[in-house]
């Protein structure tokens, strides 16, 4: 057992370690799948029931609102599943249990551990969105404007949106103390959801011009509008090019910031 002839390889490719880390996170996520879905899709689905099914039937909502709502609901599910699957374990790890320590001692550069967390967040976000899509469509009934024109564009917007929010999750998970989780939900996430163009298209904010500018600082705006651009391309939406540029910049910026706070938290 002293094993002076080591059987463990003395060099391991980063990609292999990345694969092992991802395997760990997805194994854990799979076991926790019900909790993840309830946590991140319950609220948007309930919103769909009230605003996408009940109110239209009561005549309080115009026909066609569901077409504006569906992409927004998908955006919320995608964004907040991504965010939470990175933020929550980080808060627990760095806040107390230090379970991540074992992975930080893996023979890989520390940035790879953070990068893998973001990648796992993207996968979980996409999964949540795929879970919500058929359910929302079922609850709301037929949506005329729904047409997936270009599958490539759908994939790019989805992955970029999830990446931006995973990276935001990395920032929040490493910069906020666990005592402030409640505050994070009410001060950061709740306004983000309400003013993220998820429940109304950005173009329709022409009537509230100040808000039309203000929501541009909200990352969710670009995910919501991105979903509109690729799922209901016939309806008014922000330019796809602007959306892609914004999501790329947000992903890169928050990744850079998140990596900085992650390294600060993980190396003494």
């Amino acid at each position, binding site marked *: 057992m002293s094993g002076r002839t080591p059987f463990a390889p003395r060099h391991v490719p980063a990609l292999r370690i990345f694969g*092992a880390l991802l395997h*760990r996170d997805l*194994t854990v996520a799979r076991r*926790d799948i019900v909790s993840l879905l309830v946590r991140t899709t319950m609220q948007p689905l309930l919103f769909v029931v009230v605003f996408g099914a009940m109110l239209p039937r009561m005549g309080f909502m115009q026909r066609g609102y569901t077409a504006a709502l569906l992409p927004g609901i998908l955006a919320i599910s995608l964004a907040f599943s991504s965010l939470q699957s990175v933020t929550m374990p980080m808060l627990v790890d760095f806040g107390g249990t230090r379970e991540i320590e074992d992975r930080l*001692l893996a023979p890989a550069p520390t940035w790879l551990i953070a990068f893998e967390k973001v990648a796992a967040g993207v996968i979980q976000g996409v999964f949540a969105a795929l879970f919500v899509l058929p359910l929302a469509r079922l609850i709301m009934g037929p949506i005329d404007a729904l047409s997936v024109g270009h599958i490539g564009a759908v994939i790019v917007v989805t992955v970029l949106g999830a990446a931006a929010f995973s990276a935001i999750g990395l920032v929040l998970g490493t910069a906020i103390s666990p005592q402030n989780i409640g505050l994070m939900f009410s001060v950061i996430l709740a306004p983000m959801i309400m003013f993220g163009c998820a429940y109304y298209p950005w173009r329709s904010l022409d009537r509230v011009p100040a808000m039309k500018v203000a929501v541009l600082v909200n990352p969710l705006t670009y995910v919501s509008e991105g979903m509109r651009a690729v799922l209901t391309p016939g309806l008014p939406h922000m330019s796809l090019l602007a959306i892609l540029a914004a999501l790329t910049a947000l992903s890169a910026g928050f990744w850079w910031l998140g990596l900085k706070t992650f390294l600060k938290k993980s190396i003494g």
Partner: protein
Amino acid sequence: MTETLTTPVTTTAAASEPPPAIRTRKLRKVYPVPAGARRPGAPASPAPSPAGGIVALEALDLEVGDGEFFGLLGPNGAGKTTTIGILTTRVRPTSGQAWVAGIDVVGQDVVVRHHIGVVPQRANPDRALTVRENLLFHAAYFGIARSVAEARAEELLQTFDIADRAGAKVDQLSGGQQQRLMVVRALMHDPRVLFLDEPTVGLDPQSRLALWDILRGLHAKGHTIVMSTHYMEEADQLCQRVAIIDRGLLLALDAPAQLKARAPGGTLIELTLDADATAAAEAAGAAPGVTKVESAGPRLRAWTPRAGESVAGLIRAAEQSGREVRDIHLAPPSLETLFISLTGRKLG
């Protein structure tokens, strides 16, 4: 105070000679003044620095040989955890250098991690996984093939007597079992050096003794072990050499027996007399080898570097003052007495 205490550092080792398991040169760590919460590894009773910041390590020079069982002994805030943190690539030194297996812990941290296994102060198993999965995923992070990892996990779980809990969630293990799991996990990739940071804190006496046995066994099989502790007894029982550190300074470094011989006054001889020992104490001062005498009620305490020579003289002194000796107790010098003499305070 530190100059003569370190083992000489060989800078030009012969090519054939393997590098020492660990070497540090003028290792210094200053933590920035905490703005909010204190980071793990930062000292609990910090030594303030004039430049601002908390000095956890002043200038540490150490060398640990291959196969050695080495102890870092000191109270909380001494710099033990910081030292282990630096050597395990988890803390960046402010200045100075450190090598594990001849590899720079700062410049080549990724390579160093292949060679080290770490058992933390507080057990931190992956609670979302079972016992066996903890080991298999750890092995996967080190690129070990699944079949090899499974066999090794099985073997180690058997050896450390937790094989029957292999399928259990970590939370179902007792504290002692969790700490054993930490040792097993650290051994999965067969590290050259095993680091343990106060591994027995919070363990019940039985689990502590069990862990001691495990560590002795590992050392006997050739593992290099570096362990920090604030228990004198632990350092004394297990370690071949002990570095006593306090407030980021190395105060003494030697084998426990050697260190104890340096404890002031040497062995303590305590005589219990049939009545008050004051008069006997006055006469006892003249006994051969005795450096210090005191009395408390019927007890006469004398310190001597040569206990064998002094005992007869002490008994004679007691008898000459008209007392009868009821009991004699010899206490060999301890690390505790040395520590108190070096730092002026108690451990822990």
